[in-house]
């Protein structure tokens, strides 16, 4: 059987040479053939902008800020669902229509929340943290509802026939939905990168979004491109990290 890791390893192995080729073409084309153009900045200017990014834009703080909020929210969201899993199960079974509605409208709701939170909290960093946690919790709750109703009947039957306690039965449901919940965490991770950058861009005070805003304000195109490159690399590395966590702790198919 070809596992998910097989594809990941193979993709990583294919992506790196491809990136090297793209970088080579970019350097030759924009450094030597088309140095003055309105498409992409010269590679040498891009390298010079790295210093400027750290010195003038306070990038390290901004990057650490956004990254911390994303991973803190993922952790808090997961542990909150874990702690309140019984209540969540009860809630999701009591209000199935509400959960289905949330599932259908979740993309719209996430964007709406960004603007509502901006309106409520302004530049307050707790507002951003709260927004991130709400997004993770919402996604996890929707996934928990969907997958708890799809737990294999054979697991439930086997457990029930052994006359085990209710808490152990809930634990069987909890354990069997783990891979799907983790997929939801991965989805939340991508969503948070997008939403928080939008939120920070609107607020213009903290995080990578505010660096974007500043770079656009100064018309510093090379910093914008650099930021896009750094964010893409961070996303790729975060995905590798999440996949290794999946392979270690949530290796079975739900």
């Amino acid at each position, binding site marked *: *059987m070809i596992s998910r890791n097989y594809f990941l390893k193979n993709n990583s192995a294919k992506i790196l040479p491809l990136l090297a080729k793209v970088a080579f073409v970019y350097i030759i084309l924009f450094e030597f053939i088309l140095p003055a153009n309105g498409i992409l900045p010269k590679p040498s200017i891009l390298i010079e902008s790295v210093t400027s990014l750290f010195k003038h834009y306070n990038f390290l703080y901004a990057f650490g800020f956004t990254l911390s909020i994303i991973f803190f929210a993922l952790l808090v969201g997961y542990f909150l669902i874990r702690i309140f899993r019984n209540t969540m199960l009860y809630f999701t079974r009591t209000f199935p229509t509400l959960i289905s509605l949330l599932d259908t409208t979740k993309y719209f709701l996430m964007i709406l929340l960004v603007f509502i939170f901006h309106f409520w909290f302004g530049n307050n960093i707790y507002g951003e943290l709260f927004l991130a946690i709400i997004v993770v919790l919402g996604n996890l709750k929707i996934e928990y509802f969907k997958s708890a109703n799809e737990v*294999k*009947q*054979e*697991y439930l*039957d*086997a*457990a*029930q*026939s*052994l*006359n*085990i306690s209710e808490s*152990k039965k809930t634990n*069987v449901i909890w*354990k*069997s939905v*783990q891979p799907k919940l983790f997929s939801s965490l991965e989805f939340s991770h991508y969503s948070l990168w997008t939403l928080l950058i939008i939120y920070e861009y609107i607020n213009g005070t903290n995080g990578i979004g505010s660096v974007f805003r500043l770079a656009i304000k100064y018309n510093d195109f090379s910093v914008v491109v650099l930021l896009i490159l750094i964010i893409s690399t961070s996303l790729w590395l975060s995905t590798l990290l999440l996949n290794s966590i999946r392979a270690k702790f949530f*290796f*079975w*198919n739900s």
Partner: protein
Amino acid sequence: MLKIENISKVYTDSVGYKIHLLENITLEVPKKGCSTILAPKGSGKTSLLRIIANLEKETSATIEKTSKKIAYIPSKPSSFPWMNVQSNIEFGLENSKSDVNKIIKLVGLEGYEDHFPHNKSEGFRFRIALGRALANNTDAIVIDEPFNNLNSLTRQEIYLLVRKIIIETDVTIILGTANITEAIFLSDKMFLMKKKPGEIIDEISIDLPTDRQINLLESEKFIKYRNLIEETFKNKLGRLLYNFSV
């Protein structure tokens, strides 16, 4: 012993018609040994077995059980993929875990205690499910067609394992199957069941040696039992068997 009288199960389908799935089923399962319910596919075996294992409610019945704890092994693998073999077999145990190693050895999983079942064969996962049922000191184990997806060699190994468990423990096994060979080889008593509605049409006691080997499948006595079962179905239903595996 497990005594069931007049089990009936009626359900309403999506169009609103009442379907009589099981009708007046009466069974007397002796303690220890293997009793098999042999029935074609779609006859309500699974519902009957789930009722016996207290997983489903019957429409009406009188059930008398001396077997208090009945474990259920469904047709699809039920070992938990997030637990290793040892934890799977210990699942459901509150205190005493002393016999677990003995059971692991009995079901042939010694040396695999730390393995996880998610990428193992169905035969392996059946052994885990059987081990878990035994570890929980169940009086009876209800097994619902778990051998369907096994290759013939693994299937024979599992047949021998089930017989070994019958000999070495006091557990009662209630097996539901549509496979005549499997039913004869594993059973001490058989209940033949027809479908639409599911009804018991005959009972047969299987007088074969307790310790059975695979070559028994080719013995004259075995073939006689197979012919007898086929004849019974033909005589009672007035037609040849269908939807049966041989």
